């Protein structure tokens, strides 16, 4: 009986441990700087916050779309260094983006991040610009139609 109880405690302790995952560095930075709105799993209210999971990779079929993902102010102006930001973008593209990310997509590196974030999209109408990119990505390369959801909230 006592042995069974000990086993139960061990099982519970194991379960409690399993409930507290150890996050990798990129995922930690993502959690602290992005996940509050975009969701830890990339799932967010899509009309209010662009949903990343299974969708964000749709931008990567266009060069302009790839640039957009880094130049968008929330990314370009984030308080994250170039190396960490490259790691976060790769987590976003290849883990959260999943099948939406075209096969053969090159990973981001710090040099590309540094170059792109020097030109944040501050001067354009962000929603309109995003909408044109989304239409091109959907029509030209079959990106997920769910990308259209952002900005549709009243």
């Amino acid at each position: 009986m006592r042995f069974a109880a000990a086993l139960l405690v061990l099982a519970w302790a194991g379960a409690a441990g399993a409930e507290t995952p150890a996050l990798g560095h990129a995922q930690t930075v993502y959690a602290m700087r992005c996940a509050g709105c975009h969701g830890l799993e990339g799932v967010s209210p899509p009309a209010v916050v662009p949903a990343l999971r299974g969708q964000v990779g749709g931008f990567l079929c266009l060069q302009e779309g790839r640039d957009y993902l880094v130049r968008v102010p929330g990314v370009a102006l984030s308080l994250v260094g170039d190396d960490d930001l490259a790691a976060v973008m790769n987590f976003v593209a290849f883990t959260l983006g999943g099948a939406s990310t075209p096969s053969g997509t090159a990973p981001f590196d710090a040099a590309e991040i540094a170059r792109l974030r020097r030109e944040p999209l501050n001067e354009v109408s962000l929603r309109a610009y995003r909408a044109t990119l989304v239409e091109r990505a959907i029509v030209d390369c079959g990106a997920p139609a769910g990308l259209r959801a952002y900005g549709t909230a009243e």
Partner: protein
Amino acid sequence: MTLLDRTSERLTRRLASRRSLLARLGGWLVAAPALPLLPVQRAAAATDARTEFARKAQTKDPTKCDYWRYCAMDGNLCSCCGGGLHTCPPGTVPSPTSWVGTCLNPEDGKAYLIAYRDCCGKDACGRCGCSGTDGELPTYRPQSNGDIIWCLGAPNMMFHCSSAVLVGLAG
């Protein structure tokens, strides 16, 4: 006897005296733990990276502001309002958005990511108002600010209380 001889003899006698030697040795043994450590301890205190909150945090009572997960909690504790550490009180819903901070657990000394998830849909609970500010940035960096009503995306923007969801071990 020359002066040199007398001096040498006196010195030798003093060193050879066991009682004197033991007394001195004992004195140094008593003082030793304190003397070399004092500057080291001061140096350790000076480089203690823990925040003021982390130094005083406790792990037992989640209805108190100094509970370790509340290092960046800004608002009424759901634990005092009919909810829990990571559950919303009846009649409110957890916001799909939140801000995420890092708190040190004094039991294992490790940093954990905590999501301060607001429970929305009713007037402010009013009990157990806390204001932890570890890692907080001004409102122009809203992702890291606790003053924002984090009910963005919830059916109703009315703030009731804040929960502190354990996300995971920071890497």
